[in-house]
């Protein structure tokens, strides 16, 4: 973790963030927009797979996913600005933050979830269900997990600045 922190600090992002005080809020704005695009597309597909909104073909909804991926990319880039450019405590302050760690873990789990969805062929059976069709239980489990993971990402993202409250709740 020390090497990762050192690497991030070495980017010099903190100097840039300190020099231009509008960078942080602009990145936050893009971070929220990216979050909305991600939830609006991935969430749309997940909700349909779970059975709400029959009449919408799952395969067609999946055409929205590249926009969700774009949102994820925007958030990764702005996220790196936050971690590498952190003016108070540097990158380590984020890396040591429990809420941040849990947020990253949930993103990893969401990624594994997506991989399972596509690599096991469950995605194909879900898309084949047809507009009014019901997705197979495995697809619903993945969709449900996806929603839980991404909502969790939002929650722990908000808690980063309130990590003390989280630690207090966990008795740590």
């Amino acid at each position, binding site marked *: 973790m020390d090497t990762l922190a050192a690497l991030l600090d070495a980017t010099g992002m903190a100097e840039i963030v300190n020099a231009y005080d509008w960078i942080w809020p602009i990145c*936050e704005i893009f971070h929220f927009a990216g979050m909305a695009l991600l939830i609006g*597309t991935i969430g749309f597909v997940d909700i349909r797979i779970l059975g709400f909104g029959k009449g*919408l*073909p799952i395969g067609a909804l999946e055409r929205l996913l590249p926009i969700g991926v774009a949102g994820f990319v925007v958030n990764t880039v702005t996220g790196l600005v936050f971690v590498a450019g952190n003016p108070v405590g540097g990158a380590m302050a984020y890396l040591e933050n429990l809420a941040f760690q849990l947020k990253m873990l949930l993103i990893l789990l969401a990624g594994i979830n997506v991989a399972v969805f596509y690599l096991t062929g469950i995605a194909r059976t879900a898309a084949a269900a047809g507009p009014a069709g019901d997705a197979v239980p495995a697809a619903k489990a993945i969709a449900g997990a996806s929603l839980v993971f991404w909502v969790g990402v939002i929650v722990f993202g908000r808690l980063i600045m309130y990590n003390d*409250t989280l630690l207090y709740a966990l008795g740590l």
Partner: protein
Amino acid sequence: MPELIANLAAGSSLGAEAGWLDAVESSAFATWVRESPSLFAYTAMLSLHAIGLAFVVGLSSAVALRLLGVAPEIPLVPARKFFALMYAAFWVNALSGIALFAASAASLADNVAFLVKLAFVVLAIVNLRLLKRFVFDDAGTPRDGEPVPVAAKALAVSCLALWGAAIVAGRLTAYPNLLNKYFG
């Protein structure tokens, strides 16, 4: 503008010397939201607010993008059902927003970015209702393969613009000093 609001609040017939904003802020509920160390107080309201935002802006943006030609295979008629979810998400934000406002009522009433955000949220919701009524409720919902009418595309563009403006103003609520520096 902030002076106007502050004067309105201070001179309001709704409140006593302290003004109704201070009364709201010192209420039991607002005090609990603001000062309780529990995860279910202020932090929960923030989380709910972010979650609601993600769903109302996200889902409506997805529909707007569809109207503008993204993923044209998505049939529009059944997409109407998702408006119920958008409105539910909006109410999550309205309620969590009331709690967040109460906790810092006096300073927020003075906060130009916050007031601008409220205006854009109202406009965005009106836009959403118009979108639902004219594109999805009337018999005029474009069927598969039919072109999307210009009016629907216009409402889709304004949907994205209004929510975008609301997000910008919402974030800048936390930076009153920065706004003063550049625009004060």
